[in-house]
């Protein structure tokens, strides 16, 4: 992992569409280039958040899985 996480949001227990909504709302208060870590245990979000990133232009840095918690790293685009 060669990036620094600027903010983490915990979306565990939340289902569609909350992880992408909460990510959007969190990114509003972040600067371009900053990295957000989204924690989720929703398998649908693993599929949906990369699609969300592609559609919004934000960069997907990586996805990690740790004890059932999926960690998604995104970099805010302009």
């Amino acid at each position, binding site marked *: 992992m060669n990036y620094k996480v600027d903010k983490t949001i915990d979306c565990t*227990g*939340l*289902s*569609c*569409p*909350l992880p*992408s*909504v909460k*990510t*959007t*709302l969190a990114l509003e208060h972040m600067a371009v280039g900053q990295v957000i870590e989204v924690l989720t245990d929703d398998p649908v979000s693993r599929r949906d958040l990369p699609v*969300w990133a592609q*559609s*919004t*232009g934000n960069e997907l840095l990586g996805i990690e899985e740790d004890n059932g918690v999926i960690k998604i790293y995104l970099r805010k685009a302009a």
Partner: protein
Amino acid sequence: MTEQTKNKGSVTIVLFSGEMDKAIATFVIATAAASMGMKVTIFFTFWGLNVIKKEGGLIKGQNWMQKMLNIMNYGHAKKLAISKMNMFGIGPAMLKTMMSHKKVPSLQEFISMAHSLGVKFYPCEMSMTVMGLKKEDFIDECEEVIGAVSYLSIAKETTINLFI
């Protein structure tokens, strides 16, 4: 419309129904689309107006028919029936409990979330006139009251249009 919004697409939803389940489906789509950067407009018409009504004020309208309709059709975001298995209010209560167990937001939470994501709410002028409702009867998140022509002028520019 900027070039960017064009690329990301836009959604218009006509919410004709006044049931909680259909309203939640509307707001799930609306908030998801808004999170994707899409421009989202919801046009509330007829029974759907109940979703954006303020709480309280049972008697509304100018004549006895409107007053009777508004008393029988009383409802707001916290008080809506569901389209199946309503069972005199047991259904919605159970659904709300089941939803909160699964951390699904309530309809009011969805409304404020959609509003902060920039989703625009428009009440329909014609149904308001028929039912004798005023702009003040609706929550403050609403934009101005518009008619079918204004709705269509927005809808014809959008990529996705739904009638719920």
